[in-house]
């Protein structure tokens, strides 16, 4: 009967409608509203001081963060970790050996083969192959970061090792300015004349830059590694020439005091003070050490500092001139959890404007052709060095064991030649024995 029909309470209806409405609105918010950005943290490991400060001030990280938020809705935090310049590579390797996960790493290509063999670095070949800008990098720089056909880093800069000389001391000693030695004898003779004529000069010549101590081998037309059989050359006319050059510098001509090595003189400071006439060192010193506001500032450095190519030996097959090429690059740690993002950060760090700015401020050379812009393109010193690199540049072989070979060579030069005063022939024998012991007898050989 109609009077007995039950009525649905109005409250229950309102409640049901409210619940359904809430569910619909909740679903709409979940699916339609913009998602909050994903948060990711990247680590960037580099040298403390000048290097880390430049990265912070360059704006590269801000640009990268903004781009990631815009393009991928990812909020990236970049944590800069640093190690001091002195012993940087060793601290980096110890950090990686301890299992620390690093995303973007500042590496010297010297170390790449050994670091790759230890499993520290990520193979970047798939990334660079898809990157249009990779074609703009100079071949020499790309070769230095390629090991066994695979790319393990992106070059950030290049530098060469050249001869610096004090124009004021040369003029006072009656030597010609500008000066370009044709042989190593020219270098030694010039150093001797300056020392004889100017008693205040403590040293005529600092004959090597530690990281490129092997330069005389290449100056003699030789090499340190034979790719045909994969062996390091420990005895040859070129290797003997190296020991002879250093023996002449320290003993025969006496233009490089032994104390320079034994007491670890600061040669860049001596050059600034006008107590060292000729110095073999890297392009970066021009600004990093002697530039305005730097530790060993030389006022009017353009008038005071001269620079020249390193001469060949004059032996058959030897080059007329040469300059040793080095660079620094950015790699990605093998354990990085965000390699794609890390590569995007690297792209920002090596963008043409950042690279040119770094090159101009620190006297490094750019590693890509489209970075010759702005103040960098107008700088005479950088222009000279870029041409020198293109004409006379020689780089170390990118093979495992190169670092160890050079470290043994340096040890023999310093301990056997400088400290013990052994003859070039004795030093070469000692080098061959030490290299065979540490690299393996099958990894070394004698060459003509």
């Amino acid at each position, binding site marked *: 009967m109609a009077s007995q029909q039950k009525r649905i309470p109005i409250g229950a209806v309102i409640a049901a409608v409210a619940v359904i409405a809430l569910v619909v609105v909740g679903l709409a918010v979940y699916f339609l509203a913009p998602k909050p950005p994903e948060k990711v943290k990247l680590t960037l490991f580099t040298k403390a001081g000048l290097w880390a400060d430049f990265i912070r001030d360059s704006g590269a990280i801000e640009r990268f963060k903004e781009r990631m938020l815009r393009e991928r809705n990812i909020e990236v935090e970049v944590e800069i970790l640093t190690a001091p310049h002195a012993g940087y590579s060793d601290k980096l*390797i110890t950090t990686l050996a301890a299992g620390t996960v690093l995303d973007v790493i500042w590496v010297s290509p010297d170390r790449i083969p050994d670091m790759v063999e*230890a499993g520290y670095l990520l193979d970047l070949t798939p990334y660079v192959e898809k990157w249009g800008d990779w074609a703009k990098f100079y071949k020499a720089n790309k070769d230095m970061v390629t090991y066994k056909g695979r790319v393990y880093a992106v070059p950030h800069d290049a530098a060469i090792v050249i001869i610096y000389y004090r124009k004021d001391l040369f003029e006072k000693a009656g030597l010609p300015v500008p000066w370009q030695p044709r042989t190593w004898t020219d270098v030694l003779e010039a150093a001797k004349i300056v020392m004889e004529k100017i008693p205040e000069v403590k040293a005529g010549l600092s004959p090597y830059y530690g990281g490129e101590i092997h330069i005389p081998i290449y100056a003699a037309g030789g090499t340190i590694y034979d790719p045909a059989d994969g062996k390091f050359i420990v005895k040859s006319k070129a290797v003997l020439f190296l020991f002879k050059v250093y023996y002449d510098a320290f003993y025969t001509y006496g233009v490089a005091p032994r104390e320079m090595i*034994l007491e670890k003189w600061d040669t860049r400071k001596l050059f600034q003070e006008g107590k060292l006439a000729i110095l073999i060192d890297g392009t970066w010193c021009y600004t990093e050490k002697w530039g305005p506001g730097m530790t060993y500032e030389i006022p009017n450095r353009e008038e005071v500092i001269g620079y020249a190519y390193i001469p060949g030996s004059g032996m058959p097959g030897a080059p007329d001139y040469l300059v040793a090429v080095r660079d620094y690059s950015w790699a990605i740690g093998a354990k990085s959890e965000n390699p794609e993002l890390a590569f995007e950060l690297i792209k920002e760090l090596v963008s043409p404007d950042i690279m040119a700015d770094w090159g101009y401020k620190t006297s490094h050379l750019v590693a890509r052709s489209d970075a010759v812009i702005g103040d960098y393109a107008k700088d005479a010193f950088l222009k000279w060095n870029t041409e020198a690199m293109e004409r006379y540049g020689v780089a170390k072989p990118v093979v495992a064991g190169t670092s160890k070979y050079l470290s043994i060579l340096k040890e023999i030069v310093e301990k056997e030649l400088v400290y013990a005063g052994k003859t070039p022939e004795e030093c070469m024998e000692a080098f061959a024995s030490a290299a065979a012991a540490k690299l393996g007898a099958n990894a070394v050989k004698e060459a003509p």
Partner: protein
Amino acid sequence: MPEETHRLTLVLFIIPALAVLTVFQLVPMLWAIWFSFTDMALVGRKFLDYSFVGLKNYEEALGDPHFWLSMRVTLYYCIASLVLRLLIGLAAALYITSKTFRGKRIIAGIFLLPYIIPGTIHPYVWLSMLETEHGTLNMILRALNLPPQSWMFERLTESIIAINSWAGYALAMLLLASAIASIPKEYYEISDIYGASRWFKFRKITFPLVKYPLILTLILIFKEDIDDFTYAYMFTGDTPYPDFRTEIIGLYAYHKAFMDYELGFGCAIGFIIAVIVFVLTLIQLKISRV
């Protein structure tokens, strides 16, 4: 408290310290011992693919002329530091335990300062003081019309020994002072009655009665110095001098392991140092039971 509950309480109190010791001392030590029997390197294939080589690292170390050169430098460093630390420490201990001098408590506090200042901070002060051209020490010598010295180069080893002695004499002072303070006062009172001089009292009373604590202090200081590292590293840097003038054995092990990346070899040298320290500790324990 029942015996078992008492033991359980003791164990619970010890466990945290044991855990810390195990994680930060025992495990790394065992790991290092294991690596010393391998050809493990920090770079190259030998990082991932190292092999057990038995006693090869030890044979190489003991047959390496650089190892023995480093041991000679270490011995010179340890003996020179030991003598200086002991002499200065003994003199300071006699002073602070003497009745005669006033202000002993304040002076004792000042004597302790070098020991308290962290060993990674004051070397920087010394670096500037010992600098050849503008350092404080040479400025004083010039003011006295004396020839300035090459503290950072020709006399570098002696400089490090002096700094180590300056920083470390307080340990000898504290140990010897407590030994001197425990000598019964009656001995001195009787010698005063007989008119004994200070030197006589030192020779016949003080020295014989602190002989054993002195020997223990000697061993402790020697142990501390033989695996020392800080000052030599801060004054040497990452690469050794060609003549190994500051290459004490701890620094040599560090350079081998972390500069040449020969971790296995470096660990072998470290273990040799550990064995020397262990033997010295056994001697120390035996003497302390006498």
